[in-house]
């Protein structure tokens, strides 16, 4: 009962004290809030300065490197190097697409069996297809030739497009469509 004594102060003084207490509490909270705000502003300012100086250093570095590249000597080297790169690139593509006819013709003629003769060899509109025209003494020679061609790794497929046996001349005229492998 001792702690809960009767307040004998007049009602007005009690109300005034309560208001003063509330005001002090709010004041402290406001000051704390403003201090916090100031800390945030200060922190942000320092971070902004730090980022700003980092940005300026990088900007300066970019300008320096650009000026190094932009010297007359380096631009001349760049021009020459670009020409080298472009020519190498174009030659690379060109070499890749170039047909090696010599190897093909050499291999083809070596595959000709005795008695079989080439009349013509013509590249058709499809670049990898050749039309071979020849004459042989008999079908056996043509079969041997086709078998040899099929086993050759430069040839993808061989098909007979014409077989014309000329009895009076004793010879067999034939045409083959030879498809080359894309090497």
């Amino acid at each position, binding site marked *: 009962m001792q702690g809960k004594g009767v307040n004998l102060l007049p009602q007005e003084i009690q109300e005034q004290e309560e208001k003063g207490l509330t005001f002090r509490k709010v004041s402290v909270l406001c000051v704390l809030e403003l201090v916090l705000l100031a800390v945030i502003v200060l922190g942000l300012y320092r971070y902004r300065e730090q980022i*700003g100086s980092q940005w300026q250093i990088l900007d300066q570095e970019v300008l320096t490197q650009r000026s190094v590249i932009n010297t007359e000597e380096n631009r001349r080297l760049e021009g*020459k190097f670009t020409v080298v*790169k472009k*020519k190498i690139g*174009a030659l690379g593509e060109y070499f890749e697409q170039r047909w090696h006819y010599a190897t093909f013709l050499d291999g083809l003629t070596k595959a000709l069996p005795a008695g079989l003769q080439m009349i013509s060899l013509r590249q058709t509109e499809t670049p990898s297809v050749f039309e071979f025209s020849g004459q042989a003494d008999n079908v056996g020679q043509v079969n041997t030739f086709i078998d040899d061609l099929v086993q050759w790794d430069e040839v993808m497929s061989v098909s007979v497009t014409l077989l014309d046996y000329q009895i009076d001349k004793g010879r067999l005229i034939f045409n083959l469509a030879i498809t080359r492998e894309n090497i």
Partner: protein
Amino acid sequence: MRQSPLFLILICVITTILVVVLTIYPWIGEIGWMKREIATREALLNDKLLPKVNLLQSLTEVELDSSIAALEEALPSFPQEWSVFASLEALAAESKVELGLLNIGSLGFDEATLLEGGGRLMTVDVPITSVGDLSQTVAFLKNIERAKRVLSLAQLSLGSDGEEIRLSGIAIVPFLPVPSKLGPVDEPLEELKVGDQDILAQVARLNLYGISFQSPDFTGGDVDYGKSDPF
């Protein structure tokens, strides 16, 4: 009023709003913008400028000039029809085949076309015929692949009467007009790769009948290749 907590709270809120609106918000925007700029500049430096500077520092003018001379011989910047004729005739003579009449016809490469075509492969197409025996014809085809000025055949057709082979086809002779302007400073340069070195080595192995453009005082870009046409 002066002792009112509400007044204090009001002042506090107004101050906070003012500080946020006038300082914190613009600064956050500025920091965001600077961070983006930093990222852009870092990418520019690390991906483009520094590798380019390092590459340029590793290049030597003498090596570049020698590469350009070899490449220019293999793949000129101008049509140079005369060198096509000279190459084909020399290759035919070396292979002992008899070359038919060479006729280029109308090329239609004016200076504007060549400038527009900077960096794009263009070709001079020459219909050719030759007569020789099988070994000579094979040698001719092999020699075409070894010519210093690169060329290839298309629409190949061979006719044989048992002794001689008549060859006809179109010699496709490429040339590459070089770009007349340099790219921007920031444009990256790619180093030569292993495949590029292989192509340079392949070009060095082409050893038949080149018309050399290299002179003792060769300086690459100053040479006016092929602009004067003797024909």
